[in-house]
């Protein structure tokens, strides 16, 4: 059972507006989340991230497609025992205190209250809400609501977490805390699937990424695969050498910077040996040769534009 979530051929059409015009929110979406992965579900606004997540949880019904969670059909309610879900922009029961709120969700899983007494303060602490037990939720800030949404998702000690934009509304320190929390969850053996449109979140912690644009999965790969595939250029840094090597090098690649005596060159992969020869014959000293990886941003922008 190493596939936690499998989505195959998921499509969903909404009818919106007075004329019930069709909006195709998802087209033939397929993806696979494996056990103990941190899976980033990346897409711009309106791409279909929330729609996909809501379908997985049975909140909306797809037109077609198959979803399997831990080997069972997603409509099998027994799978929900092992899932934790935090919705985007959560609104909760305003009149409950943080503790009552957590207790309510705990009781939905029939967790005994002695266990809840132990677990709730621990979870609130974990999301940075320690000491806020008796504050009513209507007195919470946006970021605090986001955090308690996350705490709520952890109440049943789930194997699989589905988080819809868990870092939105958080300050930079908060984002970092949540990133660390997700990494800690992975360490304790859990699988995390989260959506975002912030590239750096994904780049920093994900094992695997899917890029969804206009309801279609454009790419699904491990992060290292995605970032290292088809890199064509390397950056060569060298020092010294006679005057003429720079003219020779300009014919091979792009001379970017020339600071003090140190030069930075950008050359294509196939020209590495040629460049090295020129520098060494000209008496230069090579300091480093670094493959120029694409960032996720490059990939993302390219996918959006095509």
């Amino acid at each position: 059972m190493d596939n936690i979530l499998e989505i195959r051929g998921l499509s969903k059409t909404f009818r919106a507006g007075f004329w019930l015009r069709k909006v195709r929110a998802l087209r033939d979406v397929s993806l696979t989340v494996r056990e103990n992965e941190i899976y980033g579900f990346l897409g711009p606004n309106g791409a279909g991230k929330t729609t996909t997540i809501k379908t997985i949880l049975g909140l909306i019904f797809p037109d077609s497609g198959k979803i399997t969670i831990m080997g069972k059909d997603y409509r099998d309610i027994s799978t929900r025992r092992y899932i934790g879900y935090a919705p985007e922009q959560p609104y909760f029961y305003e009149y409950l205190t943080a503790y009552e709120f957590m207790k309510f969700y705990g009781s939905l899983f029939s967790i005994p209250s002695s266990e809840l007494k132990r677990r709730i303060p621990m979870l609130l602490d974990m999301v940075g809400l320690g000491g806020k037990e008796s504050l009513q939720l209507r007195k919470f800030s946006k970021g605090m609501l986001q955090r308690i949404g996350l705490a709520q998702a952890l109440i049943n000690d789930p194997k699989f977490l589905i988080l819809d934009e868990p870092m939105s509304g958080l300050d930079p320190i908060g984002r970092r805390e949540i990133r660390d929390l997700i990494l800690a969850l992975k360490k304790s053996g859990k699988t995390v699937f989260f959506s975002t449109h912030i590239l750096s979140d994904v780049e920093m912690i994900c094992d695997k990424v899917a890029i969804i644009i206009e309801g279609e999965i454009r790419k699904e790969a491990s992060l290292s695969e995605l970032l290292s595939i088809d890199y064509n250029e390397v950056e060569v840094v060298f020092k010294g050498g006679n005057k003429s090597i720079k003219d020779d090098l300009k014919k091979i690649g792009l001379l970017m910077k020339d600071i003090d005596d140190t030069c930075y060159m950008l050359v294509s992969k196939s020209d590495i040996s040629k460049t090295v020869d020129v520098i060494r014959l000209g008496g230069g000293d090579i300091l480093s040769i670094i493959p120029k990886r694409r960032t996720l941003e490059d990939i993302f922008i390219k996918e959006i534009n095509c």
Partner: protein
Amino acid sequence: MRLLSIALNTFKESIRNKILIGVLLFSVLIIISTMALVQLTIGQWMKITVDIGMGAISLFGNLMAVFLGINLVAKEIDRKTVYTIVSKPIKRYEFIISKYIGLLITIFINVALMFVILLIILKYYISYEVPYIGTIQAFYLLLLEFMIISAIAIFFSTFSTPIMSAAFSITFWFIGHLLSDLKFWSMKSESEGFKLLINTVYYLLPDLELLNLKSNIVYQITVDMKYILWVSCYALMYSVLLIAASIVVFEKRDFK
């Protein structure tokens, strides 16, 4: 246990939401204001207090049923709180039933409080020997009415906007109370078609006047337990049907 906590949560939310406290205070004021009525014979005084008191209980119970009922589920969808519940090991029908029970508990506790206050006024202030059986019967039948009205409000709210649902529910309540009169007058009508129409409507919709025993308190009359049992089944049948219909609509609904 899981379902009970949804029901209790519904109750807690509406109690902490100060609206209900306002409703309660207002109703207490109405009852107390009857005591300010001056210069009446004891009999008249008692009768007016019973009328106004039971009328206030009926009014506020029904208002709660309609206005809490239409928002009960709609608010949860609007606020997206339903997302976190339905995505847990809770079936949608369990959610509806628990919310409904939570609403009934809320209404019951509020009107029971009003009822106890009314009894205290009657007994100690007006010194009326309250006919307990008849009074409790009248109160119980009111609860049955609230049960039906809550169910109708929930039913309408599963497929229409809160304002439309409120309008539908109140219309339904009016017709429910007019039905027996309508039937009575249609008997005298010449037109067979009209008679048939009224008869059909009569058997389709609940006759809420069957649940009105308020005057029995004044006249010290009690009804047979058979009647109580029969109207209980009658009210239960309508409520169950309406909640079942709400569930059918709710089960297929996209939360968006």
